[in-house]
């Protein structure tokens, strides 16, 4: 049974808007899943994304959600590095950084170094929560989860996010940092994939197109 989307639920779903738009440009943000279930291409896209996340069934989905919600997925790795860097001096960090010969890891190091103090409390919770809502919406496309369950889970996720962050801006910033932490720096690179838009692009577009949604931080 599909429940109606109340303004309250819409507000909770919007926590995943940025991630959803990035993964699926045609997403309809005011629907439960964001995907058009009657459009085979949409369903195919959802299937592909689920495969990338290694989600083959409802059980896989729930385990994945569990890992995001408990911080095992991203925050733990971030915090491990950040706490190490918090004890480092610029010099010792520099030495560590230079010792790396992998560009991607260097970028990660640079990023964690930058946020090692500012994200001490929040870690990358915002990104993790957004991802977990995004995966719930994906799971809905293949029937791994019901809207009733989503409502129950959204409630928890929403409580966590709203108590961790104080504004949409702060939250979305965390989402973007998290995305960069996981996927690496996402500056536009025309050489590999023309027209690819970065999460920052989507962030700007979202705040223009749906300005009303992201004004009030409803606790």
């Amino acid at each position, binding site marked *: 049974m599909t429940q109606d989307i109340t303004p309250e639920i819409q507000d909770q779903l919007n926590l995943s808007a940025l991630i959803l738009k990035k993964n699926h440009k045609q997403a309809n943000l005011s629907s439960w899943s964001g995907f058009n279930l009657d459009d085979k291409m949409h369903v195919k896209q959802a299937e592909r994304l689920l495969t990338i996340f290694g989600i083959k069934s409802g*059980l896989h989905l*729930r385990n994945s959600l569990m890992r995001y919600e408990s911080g095992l997925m991203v925050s733990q790795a971030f915090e491990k590095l950040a706490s190490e860097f918090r004890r480092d001096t610029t010099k010792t960090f520099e030495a560590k950084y230079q010792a790396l010969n992998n560009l991607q890891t260097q970028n990660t190091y640079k990023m964690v170094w930058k946020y090692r103090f500012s994200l001490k409390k929040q870690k990358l919770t915002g990104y993790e929560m957004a991802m977990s809502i995004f995966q719930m919406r994906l799971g809905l496309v293949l029937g791994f989860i019901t809207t009733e369950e989503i409502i129950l889970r959204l409630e928890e996720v929403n409580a966590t996010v709203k108590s961790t962050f104080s504004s949409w801006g702060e939250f979305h910033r965390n989402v973007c940092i998290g995305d960069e932490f996981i996927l690496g720096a996402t500056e536009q690179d025309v050489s590999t994939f023309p027209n690819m838009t970065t999460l920052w692009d989507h962030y700007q577009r979202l705040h223009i197109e749906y300005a009303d949604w992201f004004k009030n931080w409803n606790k």
Partner: protein
Amino acid sequence: MSAIFKTHIIPNLKLDALEASETKGLQQVLEILEATDTDVYKNIKNNSDFSGITADFTTQVAQQIYFHPKRYANTTEGIAFVTAWLPLLDEGIYPDEKSVNKLVEFLTFNLGYFQSEAFSETIAQQLFQVLKILVKSPSEAALPIVQFIIQGIFDIRDVLSSEYLIQNCLKHNLFSGTYAVKQDNGTISTFPFTIDSNFINYFFEGNWELFIHKFHQLLPVGRVYEKSAYDIITPWFSNDLAAFYEANPNSALTAIEALKERLIWADAQSDTLLHLTTTEGNYPLMQALANKKWDSGDVLLFNTRDKSLPKQQQDAGYINFLDWLIADGGANLNSEAFKDYGIKILSENTANNLPIECIPFWFQIAHPQTGFKNHSETFNTLFSKLFLEDDRFGLLPTMRLKGKDVQVTGAFVIRTIAQSHSNVLLWFERLQNEGLKNPLNQFLIRAFCDAGEALLELFTAEEQENLQRLLLNLAYATRDASAIIKAKNIPLIAETLSFLCVESGNFTRVNEIWALKDLEANATDICNQFARKHYINENRPLTLNTIQAFFNYLGDYYYSLTKEAVWVPEALTTQGTRIAQYFNLHNEDVGFFIHRLVDRVLSFHKRCKSKETTNPIFKSISADIEVFLTDFLGKLNNEKLHLNTITKLYEYSNSDDSRFSSNDVLYDQIESYSQFVLETEASESEDTTEQDAEDTQESESAEEGSVDTVSTSKIDINAIEVNQHYVEALLTNIETYKTAGCETELLDYFNTHIKDLKTWLTNDKTGLEMRFSQTLYMTLLDTDLAPGTALETYGNLSKNVFVHLVKGSNLATSYAMGLKTIAKSGAYSDPLANALLQVADQLNA
């Protein structure tokens, strides 16, 4: 009266040479012929007195009537003459041998004429009527006629005449009864029409080979779709013929060739001959077919077999058929013999008639690597019908093996396949790419499922692991397979995996198998049972991981409104005590872990309570959680709880959210912690740092210990008896002997009353037994109590008590194993190590 008799025969009768009795016979003949107005008759009538004389139809009389070679000079007249015999023959007056031989000459000469149009149907009717009577007659006339006809039939040099005779034999049913033979002594014997030594003697010069040769030559001859010599001879088949074939396998082989020719040229089946049996019940021709290498003709012939033939007779045929199919690199698969006939051998059949060899054959011929590409589809269809779509048997059918019906087992299938492949799994993998829609995979899954626990013996641990992976891939690749295939196979895969995945602790794998339920509703029960077995298994020791899993899945259970992780309520309602005991025995500090556990449980309890009114499901979840908390906290040693956990419990219990107040037991349990809370509050007011809080907790447990423990110094040795008080005193002493000193006498008392102690502990419900053995176990490992030390006596006593308590319990082997490992680890001195080994031996004894 016929004209011939009137003009030629009767006037020429010579009465002179006849005896009176013969004359009387002749008179009767004339009466029958209605020749009473002839001169001869009147003559006899007037001149003879036959009183007291019996009529006698001697050879002489017969020759007077029947032997008139001149009449045969003209064909028409000859025929008229012979047909004129009818009234006489009807009365039993038969010709003699000489006359009959003349008749045979006439018939032989005119065979061609009989087949011409000039020979009318009516006359033919009469002529064959005469022959029929002669054949049946119990007289010397019979044999020459039968010989003539049989030789005519078997003489295919003149195929037209042979055919003519055959058709008329059938039409007039000439050979229905017996034939008569005049013996040397003049008597007449009759024999039935059957192929035996008499038959061969009279018709084939006593030469079996001659008969067989002619018979085989005759078999394929005849018009298509019409009756032939075979139909005449069929009733004559006998055990003797079968015995001849049995004794002469070469003849049997030529018979098979003849039957094949008959099948191909005349399109006629010959089951009766093919299924000929000897008196012993052997089938010489089927045997010959079984022993030869097949060509297409044999396939055709086998296809005509009677389906009711005993299975033993068909077994070899099926195997020859399979050999024929794969011979010459599968060339026969393209033949008409296979497409039009051979295929029926499999399609119009059931698995229980077929030999077990079909299974490896199918795998060979339809496997993407070894099979014949263009034909695998055909065989997959054939064998799916036999093995997969037939619901008369469970997973696997019974089939034929070495002349017996044998139930096919999964283990057998796997072993057979494994024999022909050096790397079975690689072979499976190749097949797996075809997906579940390939019937071979479906059959394999049945075999695996049927093999069940035997899989663990059939495959090495590494292969089992690979197999699990293969099966999972197969299952997860079925998203697009048809619903029926999924419904049938996913549950079987799940069941197989539940046999394979028995090792504990690999929860990633467990979850993957458990998740199969999302692919197919039919598999839900199996999968849930499987998950339950792994997560809640009383036979396996608990680990922190398992406990954590319980409470992780509490989330799924709650969020999905009890639809997922369905074993969670069972875990909640039955595992509380067990988890508490696990923590009690856990030496390391598990307070933090317990805190998180309690925190998670309480948070879900709170959510359930707040939503209770919207859905009754939440009420049941919170009720289960309360059962868990009651069991868990009821058994858990107080000192295992961190202070902040207790505070949290206490505060939650007393808050409005929890409504624990309606649950007396739980509420009281938590209330009993109030002492701690008060202490904490007191100490917090003195000093608020965390460090101090921990100190407080320590002093707290110490204080609590002194409340609970029985002060051993007060023990009066004479007053000791086996009861709660002293048992606990003993336990305390064993736990604290290092600081409190050894109460050797107390231990000694229980050592002598070991039986009473054991009984008491068995009846004890508070889990003291477990604690006892664990504590005693620790003393074994204590170097201070080792042999040769001051406390050796105490050590020996506790060793003795340990052995008695643990021996025979289900923990005995684990302890023994543990002791052995420790003894061999080299960490201990030789005397102690030896002592430990000794204990292990005692436990195992």
